[in-house]
């Protein structure tokens, strides 16, 4: 019989609080490298100049230790929890929310969450300042992923329930149409997360996980890798370019995740990340 590992929720709170500030000040190296490569690849002078400014913004934010974007987003916390872990020292949910509150305050991040989605004039998101997804896995480890999800990209994301007859071509159309409709509003160059399969709600979560996958990592399945490359080419063919100013780099990557689904369905979700992709993962 395996032994149970005690983990104080205070450790989760403190790790989250520090990580949240860190992701908002420092853009991940894979994204920064891709942006630098995009400067070289971009053919439109105006878009190239825009990409140079974007890279400069991230350099300035890291040196000055300030948020890369005023929209520090809605905090999304993804926890992979080993089934042999026992959380002690209080409520895990409350510790996560407290970590978000502390990080937001300490990092001079914008408090952008309202407690009342239908009446935006009220600023009262303190009771739940983020979104939590917990997955139980084998073992006694805990993996904490935090993302600050700006709503420029979130607002332009989409979910469609296709039918089996729509096939891969249908998936392709949903992705390309979503990016086309988003245009400049989602702050391209984008990282496009695509979730295929599952149910209505799991397709969306798959897309979120895909959007948060490092862009240097391609899918392990060759056919999905091929789909990712094809989708990236099609999205870049749209001509939207950085900030919709026209150009050949509309997305830095298209990441696809798949899951089993019902024989009667083909859910497709597309979650757009702006170039300010803020995410990090640590083990606790």
């Amino acid at each position, binding site marked *: 019989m395996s032994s149970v590992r005690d983990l104080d929720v205070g450790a989760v709170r403190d790790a989250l609080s520090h990580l949240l500030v860190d992701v908002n000040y420092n853009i991940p190296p894979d994204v920064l490298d891709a942006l630098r490569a995009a400067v070289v690849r971009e053919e439109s002078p*105006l878009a190239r*100049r825009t990409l140079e*400014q974007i890279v400069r913004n991230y350099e300035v934010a890291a040196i000055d230790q300030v948020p890369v974007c005023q*929209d520090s987003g809605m905090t999304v916390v993804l926890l992979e929890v080993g089934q042999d872990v026992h959380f002690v020292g209080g409520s895990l949910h409350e510790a996560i929310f407290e970590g978000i509150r502390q990080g937001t305050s300490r990092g*001079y991040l914008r408090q952008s969450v309202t407690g009342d989605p239908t009446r935006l*004039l009220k600023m009262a998101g303190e009771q739940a300042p983020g979104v939590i997804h917990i997955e139980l896995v084998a073992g006694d480890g805990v993996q904490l992923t935090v993302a600050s999800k700006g709503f420029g990209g979130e607002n332009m994301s989409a979910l469609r329930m296709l039918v089996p007859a729509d096939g891969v071509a249908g998936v392709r159309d949903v992705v390309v149409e979503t990016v086309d409709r988003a245009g400049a509003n989602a702050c391209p160059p984008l990282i496009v997360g695509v979730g295929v399969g599952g149910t209505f709600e799991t397709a969306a979560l798959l897309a979120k996980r895909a959007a948060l996958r490092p862009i240097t990592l391609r899918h392990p399945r060759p056919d999905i890798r091929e789909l990712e490359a094809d989708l990236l080419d099609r999205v870049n063919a749209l*001509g939207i370019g950085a*900030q919709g*100013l026209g150009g050949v780099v509309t997305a830095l990557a298209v990441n696809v995740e798949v899951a089993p689904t019902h024989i009667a369905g083909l859910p497709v979700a597309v979650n757009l990340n702006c170039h300010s992709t803020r995410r990090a993962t640590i083990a606790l």
Partner: protein
Amino acid sequence: MTDIAKLDARSGTPSMTHLRAGDAVEVTGRLLTLRDASAARLARAIDSGDRLPVWLDGQILYAVGPSPAKPDQIIGSAGPTTTARMARYFPTLFAAGVRAVIGKGELHGDEMAPFTAHGVVYFAAIGGLGALLAKHITAATVIAFEELGPEALYALDVEAFPVVTIIDMAGRNFHEDARARWRRHTP
């Protein structure tokens, strides 16, 4: 690419008739910030004939909700937010004399119509440039709706604030032109 045009709004509203969609511009002078909540309040006040907390005639609006300033900062990160979210308030705000809007993202159809109807210019700042653009802001004062936090109405003084002309006074839309020019057909 053409040279960068200068727009000096320090003493009165500058002429913008010479600006063409696609022109890179640097704005110097006073801007008023706009957000979902503050735009709704301004439009409601105009509609009900209430006295406005600020004179909109001749003003340039900037769609932004800054992050909190650190102790040594004038303002926190302050890049543009998506303009289209506030488009439904534009007919009312433009009738009150607004001359230009700085934001990010695209405006089409009904969102664009008030710009052409009132001869208002739309400039895009680069989205996600919060740290860099804050360095072009030399003063920031809350002048109304302080209780809205980041959505409060600020007066900002900016210097050489970089934008691109998207909708010019001739009613051209640069986003539409640029997309059409760079679009490539795939099998």
